[in-house]
């Protein structure tokens, strides 16, 4: 029993050190990581980024080696800097032969963002849906929530915490009639009243079929959304941008990214490469000509320029993750890293990462040092020495501190 407790105490101390030492190391050695702001230019047809010169001045650069002043940079990205150009009377009358106005730039511009920490969060299990056709201009915050169970959809009034039987029955009947199979596998929407219009919810049923649900004057609007054969929905991001062109962005379980048109539910693949919203963040800055899609994961960045008119990929640039010198040094010191939190999700759970065989050498040296300091023969201390080789400094420190000198 006591031997078990001694071993357990040493291992507990080792686990705590495996968590705290790498954290302390990265906290002390953290360096700022910065990438220049980059967009695809519809004028020079190249990625262009805004950087700072040695003297602190703002310098624009495109990927062809041209440099721009701040004012010139505005000109090569007219759909993004339209307000500045309009204020200076420099907004172009046409781009790529297409007549444009400031209003076009304003209406077609959008920014879409998703990150793993947005996606990987504990779900509540209840959802809200706005009244899409409110009596007044502004939306009202929903007064109820809904859940979709095996027996149907259930609306619960928030003020009284009671089920609205009539509304629940009405929606359930319509959903059944349209072929919906309860319960729902996924519900996606933006139930905030602070928006221009409401696209409602997209709901995936138990069979994997996709449906569009809205509430219009208290009555259900429920329509099946046709999907290609074998299509399996991964994640859904309902969009409500001013140009009203799209209903949602979504991924399939194979990691493809799609834009769904609002007018006919047509699905258009945006070939940005494999994208997993649970591990990668994405930002799209789009306008009526091009979208600049920025996908980041673990320090690596992928920039994809997409033609907004036909969703074709125009240009791709990739920047691999480059570990800092301190991160490289940590690989020799720490055999692995234990953490309980992550920037990629909101959960607390043990995660072991950054396994480094290079640290075995340091472990071997520490094991020899331990045998020397504690005057143990290799035979007498073989298990402890093996433990130190594997766990390195994490076990070396507890054994030195918790074991009495002989």
């Amino acid at each position: 029993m006591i031997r078990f407790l001694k071993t357990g105490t040493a291992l507990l101390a080792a686990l705590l050190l495996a968590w705290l030492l790498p954290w302390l190391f990265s906290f002390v050695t953290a360096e700022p990581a910065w990438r220049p702001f980059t967009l695809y230019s519809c004028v020079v047809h190249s990625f262009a980024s805004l950087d700072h010169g040695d003297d602190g001045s703002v310098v624009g650069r495109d990927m062809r080696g041209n440099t721009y002043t701040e004012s010139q940079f505005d000109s090569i990205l007219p759909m993004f800097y339209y307000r500045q150009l309009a204020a200076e009377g420099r907004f172009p009358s046409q781009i790529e032969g297409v007549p444009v106005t400031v209003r076009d730039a304003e209406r077609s511009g959008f920014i879409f963002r998703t990150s793993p920490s947005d996606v990987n969060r504990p779900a509540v299990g209840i959802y809200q849906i706005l009244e899409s056709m409110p009596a007044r201009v502004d939306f009202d915050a929903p007064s109820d929530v809904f859940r979709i169970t095996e027996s149907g959809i259930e609306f619960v009034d928030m003020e009284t915490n009671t089920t609205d039987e009539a509304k629940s029955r009405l929606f359930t009947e319509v959903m059944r009639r349209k072929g919906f199979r309860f319960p729902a596998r996924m519900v996606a929407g933006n139930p905030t009243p602070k928006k221009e219009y409401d696209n409602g919810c997209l709901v995936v049923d138990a069979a994997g079929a996709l449906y569009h649900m809205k509430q219009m004057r208290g009555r259900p609007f429920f329509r099946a959304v046709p999907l290609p054969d074998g299509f399996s929905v991964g994640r859904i991001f309902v969009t409500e941008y001013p140009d009203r062109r799209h209903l949602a962005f979504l991924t399939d379980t194979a990691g493809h990214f799609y834009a769904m048109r609002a007018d006919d539910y047509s699905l258009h693949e945006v070939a940005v490469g494999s994208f997993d919203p649970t591990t990668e963040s994405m930002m799209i800055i789009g306008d009526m000509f091009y979208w600049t899609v920025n996908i980041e994961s673990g320090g690596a960045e992928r920039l994809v320029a997409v033609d907004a008119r036909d969703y074709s990929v125009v240009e791709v640039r990739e920047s691999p993750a480059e570990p800092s010198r301190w991160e490289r040094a940590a690989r020799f010191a720490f055999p692995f890293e234990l953490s309980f939190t992550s920037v990629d999700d909101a959960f607390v759970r043990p995660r072991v990462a950054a396994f480094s065989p290079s640290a075995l050498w340091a472990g071997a040296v520490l094991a020899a040092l331990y045998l020397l300091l504690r005057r143990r023969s290799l035979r007498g201390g073989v298990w402890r020495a093996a433990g130190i080789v594997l766990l390195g400094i994490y076990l070396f420190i507890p054994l030195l501190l918790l074991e009495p000198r002989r």
Partner: protein
Amino acid sequence: MIKAILYKEWIKMRALLPVAAVAVLGFTVYALLRVERAVDFRGAAHVWQIMIDKETVFIEPLRLLPALAGIAAALVQFIPEMSQRRLKLTLHLPFPQRGMILVMAAAGLGALAVLFAAQAAMVWGYMHRLLAPELTARAMMTAVPWWAAGLTLYMLTAWICLEPTWRRRVLYLLMTAGVARMFFLSDVPRAYDGMLPWMAALWLFSLLLPLLSVDRFKQGCQD
């Protein structure tokens, strides 16, 4: 003999328990009254909306109370045992030594469990009338790590108190601080759901740790 041991533990804890009960249950009433005021002023729908949108469960002010109660209970129970080495006398009573320590710990754990159960009942009793079961479960599950922290820190504090040498106490204190930090890494509701089995394992292990300190005491370890 068990009855006598429990009576001894009651004598040690009887001053603390009313204070702990007033503090824990009083703060619980305060937290729930805050929710009730929000309901009075803005309506129940506002409370629902905040819980859904803002990732809050309204009982966050209670998060440290179980941990503090656990530490305080262990201190009042085990510091008297170590002052003037009274533990020596305790261990000479006609009762298995390990069983003696476990019964003492069981007394403290039982008192804490009753206190935390009363707190949980108050929170659940209020919230389940006001909120959807999903939101009530969200609040209760968010609080589970706080109660687990109370029970675990009770055992780890006992482990430190019963340790006969100061050098080891400092080491154990550092380890306990690290373990305590683990219970309070996130304010996100239900963030700890996946961590609960590991917490349970840690608590089970911590149940036995005072035996290690007592073993060192019996060996005569001292500064």
